[in-house]
């Protein structure tokens, strides 16, 4: 009988590069920047790492396929390294691989590294890419903002809200994340914006304006994990453990069946329920201290608040405007600045979110430290609302 991952695995070290337009760095330098920090944090030697997972999405844009970008860059001593890719959940998937390996007892110490070098395309936004030989024949050549913008049109129609009110809540989300990003020296965008700035920004994909969109940047983040028993044996005292790691990919329901109305994220709801069950969370709104969700666009964060069961269905606009997810709110969200201010180097994002939860739980978040958080949730949404991969993870202090 499976018992889930709760409290089986300890995170003993994490690292995160500075995110941004790192014109001076390739994927390799970003990997090393994050790794150096994690190794020092864990106080272990490189050769103690027995297995590794690398998360990288646009391999064709940067370091290439396979395990090699990681094993070559870090000169790893021929240990098993696996590259994983699961769209925007890629970083979390790298962590899941490492976590499961130490939980299974396959090794004592494993590394999860996520990296993405996006700013070598020569143009803004995410790189153009093929969707596969068949889908290219019929699917629109949608951009991420265009695909996610539709959450807003469908949400406004379903809940009969004026687009102006929805846009104002979306603006509040961006204003809040920018305020958080200012406090974070590793964030890409570090300046405050006003609600008017957000509302008056040029339209990217109706109804999303520029300030509703996350940045596009380069970055890497990583985690070093071991089993809880091993962590104790190695002398770690206060450490963060994994409480839940769940993943739910679409099966075509949203894309091909009229049962989905386009106003919510079906897979996020499923992943959240599984994660809460795995972590033993009964009332997420009360038990979760803080969240890093997939705020690729402001409207995504808004609907995700409902999909995670933090805001009631149809109640996200009010919860946002009431400040529930602000730094001083009931459940602070994107306390590090989020994708909004970090940008979204795809392979790195899931691990960057975990990094903030890790720092906050250990009380090491500096200027942006929250008062004694106990459980932190991370969420990724890969792909587009109509077909995607959703991950929900929960981290907490060692019980």
């Amino acid at each position, binding site marked *: 009988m499976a018992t889930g991952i709760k409290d089986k695995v300890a995170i003993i070290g994490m690292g995160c590069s500075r995110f941004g337009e790192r014109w001076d760095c390739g994927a390799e330098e970003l990997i090393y920047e994050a790794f150096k920090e994690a190794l020092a944090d864990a106080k272990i030697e490189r050769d103690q790492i027995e297995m590794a997972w690398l998360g990288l999405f646009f391999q064709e844009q940067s370091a290439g396929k396979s395990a090699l970008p990681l094993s070559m860059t870090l000169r790893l001593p021929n240990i098993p390294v696996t590259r994983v890719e699961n769209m925007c959940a890629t970083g979390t998937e790298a962590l899941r691989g490492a976590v499961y390996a130490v939980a299974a007892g396959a090794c004592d110490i494993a590394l999860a590294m996520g990296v993405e070098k996006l700013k070598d395309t020569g143009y803004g936004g995410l790189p153009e890419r093929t969707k596969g030989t068949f889908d290219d024949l019929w699917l629109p050549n949608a951009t991420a903002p*265009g695909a996610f913008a539709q959450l807003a*049109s469908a949400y406004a129609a379903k809940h009969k809200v004026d687009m102006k009110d929805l846009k104002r809540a979306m603006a509040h989300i961006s204003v809040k994340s920018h305020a958080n990003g200012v406090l974070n020296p590793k964030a890409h965008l570090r300046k405050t914006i006003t609600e008017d700035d957000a509302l008056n920004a040029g339209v990217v994909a109706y109804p999303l304006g520029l300030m509703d969109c996350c940045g596009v940047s380069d970055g890497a983040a990583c985690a070093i994990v071991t089993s809880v028993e091993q962590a104790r044996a190695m002398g770690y005292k206060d450490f963060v453990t994994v409480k839940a790691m769940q993943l739910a990919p679409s099966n075509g329901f949203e894309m091909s069946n009229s049962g989905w109305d386009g106003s919510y994220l079906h897979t996020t709801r499923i992943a959240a329920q599984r994660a809460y069950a795995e972590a033993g969370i009964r009332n997420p709104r009360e038990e979760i201290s803080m969240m890093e969700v997939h705020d690729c666009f402001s409207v995504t964060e808004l609907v995700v608040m409902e999909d995670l069961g933090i805001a009631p269905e149809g109640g996200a606009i009010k919860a946002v405007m009431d400040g529930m997810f602000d730094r001083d709110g009931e459940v602070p969200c994107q306390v590090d600045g989020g994708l909004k201010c970090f940008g979204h180097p795809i392979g790195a994002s899931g691990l960057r979110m975990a990094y903030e939860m890790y720092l906050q739980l250990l009380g090491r978040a500096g200027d942006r430290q929250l008062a004694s958080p106990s459980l932190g949730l991370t969420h990724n949404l890969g792909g587009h609302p109509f077909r995607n991969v959703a991950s929900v993870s929960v981290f907490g202090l060692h019980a």
Partner: protein
Amino acid sequence: MSYGILSFGAYVPTMRLARSAIAEAVAWAVPSLKGLAKGERAVANWDEDSLTLAVEAGRDCLSGIDATIDNLQLASTTVPFADRSNSGVIADALLLPEGVTTEDLGGSRRAATSALVRLGLTQSSRSTLLLAADCRETKPGSTQEMNYGHGAAAILFGTGEPIAIVTGAASLHDDFIDQYREANIDFDYALEERWVRDEGYNKLVPKVVRAALANAKLDLSEIHRFVLPTSAATAKGVAKALKADPERFSDPLSANCGDCGAAHPLLMLAHALETAVPGEKILVIGFGQGADAIVIETTAHLANLQGTHGPQRYLAQKRLCKNYTMFLSLRNQLDIDFGIRSERDNRTSQSASYRRRKDITGMIGGRCSACNTLQFPRAQLCVKCSAVDTQVGTSLSGLTGRVKSYTEDWLAYTPLPPYIYGNVEFEDGANCMLEFTDFDPGQVKVDSTVRLVFRIKDFDAKRHFRRYFWKPAPLLNTKP
């Protein structure tokens, strides 16, 4: 049951360019064009070509008609493919069976009328859907740019209850070069209008008309309408030469369409049939290096199709293209800098495309025989009940959809920004994310109803290929 014309159809793109916009833009170079700056001309959207225009005319012709098609013919001087059966693509788009013979006719503006002569004079047990379409590009500042339009028409021949029968026809060949276009050249080269009128129309048309009338055993005075695709002024001259009543010459559709080349005689005929009464004798003329003339007599069955077939509903639907540079860009004559995103490589895997050709070209999804759920694309396992191998091919192309979500995307590349796409719901659970066409910004709403039209999905400029698929467009007769 007799042989004759069983149905007719037409299609004119909704995009119109005011001729004054052309005249104003080029006045510095060609001030004389001002004299032609009346009304509007039809302009194919960036995703339309002769092939897609013909598909729409074919759908119009076949709507509500229960007929087996044996032959499919496409008459055009501007087919997109020189070697790939254009009519074969159309056959799949119109869901015609594999055994239908497909023929591309071209090389002359008379391609359609010559086929009409042949089909009219040769009684056949086989039915033929004759499509005619032209999408001729024109040199900026030319009279062709003013006078041409883009459009298509269709005539269905077969045995049944004809709406009209052909009572006589004639053809004559004469290498009179009023205008020409060498293969692989973009634009027509046209000679002086006065010479074309005096030596061409005024001499060749009366000759072929008399031959057709003799064949039909009719007197000129018995003809109720003349369908002659030319300017009103030239038609007047021909009427004089024939000693016919100029009032009997049909409207050349210059006010809101323009001359659609090989399609124009059929388009004008379709327009005439929209209002013709039973027993009306119509003489259709094709001109170009000779002339064709076909005498048609309508029957009482015509009334069954009036109001639901023909160009009037398309002509009534209009999006004004006010900007001349936009017109040039849509027709690929102005290389706007759309940025690096527009460099995306649209290479088609032909083997992958071939496996799913019917699904893509016919918008064929699957209807699960276990739970009746309709889905696109079809798959081995049902999206609703997971039953295996239960999906029966069912086309969605004729269905009306409802918009569930949409966006107007200014980041994505499209030749006519914004790139509008969204989630569309069809009957029996079907749901599809699709690229929209023919909508203006601000026009699509959640719950808008849409119809599907066959369009170019994208171009592969590197390998000179284009892909087609279906897109939601505004319903006919609904004002934006």
